[in-house]
């Protein structure tokens, strides 16, 4: 039973029900651009590549994209200025910065300029892909929704309660925050790094199994209630947190 619940899914299935997106990659390093574009195309997305900041700005202003991935240091126009120009031009497309600059100050600077996420080079494609999917404008819930529901799993953000069917689940604050983030990104892979950043505000490698331990505690609590006799309407296993090998975790409804 445990094996079935903790089933690992292959890393190619990075996002269930993924809808094709249009992604703009602004990157002067051809190899990185090709690597990113190939990965995104394998996920079924359409990709446009701009080799410098000016082309990037032109494309982003001219066409509509779901996500923009851009290098921070670009010829023609620096990434920071590019984002500022886009925002000034009323373009609210989510932007992910790729950068070799990983310091605290650099990160803050990037986000203040109007970027939505920040990934330090070198990065793995699965990490980038998870972040692209998380940013894409297909929210399963309204950002301000008080109640998140995934299958029979229900999380109330105001009362800070979690229910599985008719059973209440008692979660510690960080477990609650972790489950909340997984639910907001239901059916999408979230990586360990994303969880560290969003749940703990840790922007470094904690060197121990913080995320793994918390995930397994949440799983155990869900499992206890399931064993306690929640009837599954669909007849399936109910909501569960899947481990995606080499990528992260994904909450699915059944």
């Amino acid at each position, binding site marked *: 039973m445990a094996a079935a619940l903790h089933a690992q899914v292959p890393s190619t299935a990075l996002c269930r029900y993924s809808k094709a997106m249009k992604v703009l990659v602004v990157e002067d390093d051809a190899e990185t651009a090709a690597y990113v574009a190939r990965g995104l195309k394998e996920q079924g997305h359409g990709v446009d590549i701009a080799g410098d900041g000016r082309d990037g700005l032109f494309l982003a202003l001219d066409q509509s994209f779901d996500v923009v991935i851009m290098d921070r240091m670009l010829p023609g126009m620096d990434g920071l200025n590019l984002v500022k120009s886009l925002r000034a031009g009323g373009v609210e497309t989510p932007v992910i910065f790729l950068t070799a600059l990983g310091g*605290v*100050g650099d990160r803050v600077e990037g986000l203040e300029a109007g970027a939505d996420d920040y990934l330090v080079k070198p990065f793995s494609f699965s990490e980038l892909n998870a972040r692209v999917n998380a940013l894409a404008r297909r929210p399963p819930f309204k950002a301000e929704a008080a109640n998140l529901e995934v299958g029979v799993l229900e999380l109330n953000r105001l009362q800070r309660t979690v229910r599985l069917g008719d059973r209440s689940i008692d979660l510690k604050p960080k477990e609650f925050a972790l489950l909340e983030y997984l639910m907001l990104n239901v059916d999408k892979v979230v990586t360990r790094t994303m969880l560290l950043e969003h749940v703990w505000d*840790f922007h*470094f490698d904690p060197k*121990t199994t913080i995320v793994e331990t918390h995930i397994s*505690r949440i799983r155990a609590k869900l499992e206890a209630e399931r064993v306690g006799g929640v009837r599954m309407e669909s007849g399936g296993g109910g909501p569960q947190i899947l481990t995606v090998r080499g990528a992260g975790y994904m909450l699915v409804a059944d």
Partner: protein
Amino acid sequence: MRSTRARVATLLIALFLAVFGSSGLATWAALSQPVDAGIEQRLRHELSVAERFYIPSDPLASARAIQARERRPSGFEFRLADIHNRRIAGDLPDGTTYAPGLDTIETPPRAIPNSYADDSDEADADVGQRIRVLTTVLPDGAVLTLGEDLGRTRQLKALFLRTFILTSGAALLTALALGLGYVSRILRRIELIGRTADAVSGEDMGVRAPVRDPARGDDIDQLAMSVNRMLDRIASLLQSVRQVSDDVAHDLRTPLAHLKQRVETALSGPPSVESYRAALEGASEKIDEVLATFEALLSIAQLEAGSQTAAFYAVDLADVAAVVVEAYRPSAEDEGRQLVLRAPRPVMVLGQRALITQMLANLVANALIHTPHGTTVEIEAENLGATARLSVVDDGEGVPDAARAQIFRRFFRVEQSRTTPGSGLGLSLAAAIASVHDAVILAEDAAPGLRIIVDFPSPSEHLT
């Protein structure tokens, strides 16, 4: 530097000539007028006296009396002539008509014996003399003329001029010598600073510009101290860069060599998807390891170089400790270790929260990784007045004294066998973060176990 000296000398001389020249001219003019007026006054006085000596019945006796009087050292030249301008007595030349009143006459060369021969030179006598004369017509029609050789006043003026030139020349030379000496001393000190910079741009990073009196610190000392501060900063940056390259050579080469061996082993073996996949997975792991080390080294170098210049804000160490303990507690408990938090009150410091969190996380992770199961790790945040202390104490096996002294060095590991995980950079990074916050980090024997203390300077009163 040479040209600076020449410029200073030229400027000094020009300034001097201007000041002394104008004051000399002014003095000359002021001096000349009273002297000329004085001559006229004395001539009039003397003439009135001589008139009284004159007896019209005996011009010759009168002439003798006048002559006797004018022989005195302060006497005048004179000439007594009868009504027909025939000389009766006196030395003044005959060639001119002496009209009553003041006049200046020129004598032909050597016309009269020069009574001031001891003072004037030959050339003077050769060109003749200029004599100021005052003439009056006596009641019997005789003409009496008194004259003062202007050579006397000219000599006075010459004496003044000579004295003036001599003293001003001496003053100019003295000022020039003193000024150039002073300028040279300053220039030499500046040259020394310049030479220090040259020496540093050569090889010798240890050279510093001489500072005469750091306490008083004149302008040149201030310059020297600024240059020295800059050199200190450059030296520490260079040291940091050298350290990084040493570290890279030392600890990145080994995992890279392992990586290459794995790839080569796979390539030289029989081709199979399984073995290639295994090799690639192994290689990918190794690369992650290298990247993590690289990242840590880079962070340390950036922190040490001070390029992480984000602003400092008020940070509550107690809150940071609570967050970190909460994050690590489940995994610690799963492995049979206890995390104890002792931070009941806010402990405020100025800093970057993200960095302080990372530092404490590193210290806690270090304590969890390097201690046996059953260990208790205590995390404490407390106010100690002048300092705010963050400490991580474990009751594990501890670290031998010799090793404890080196614990914050890069790549230093207590067990050289490297069987436990870790890059040997966690505590170095913690030390670098402490140093950015002007905090003192110490490793102590907790008997048993290890105690790491980070003492932050307390912020000013209004924050606490």
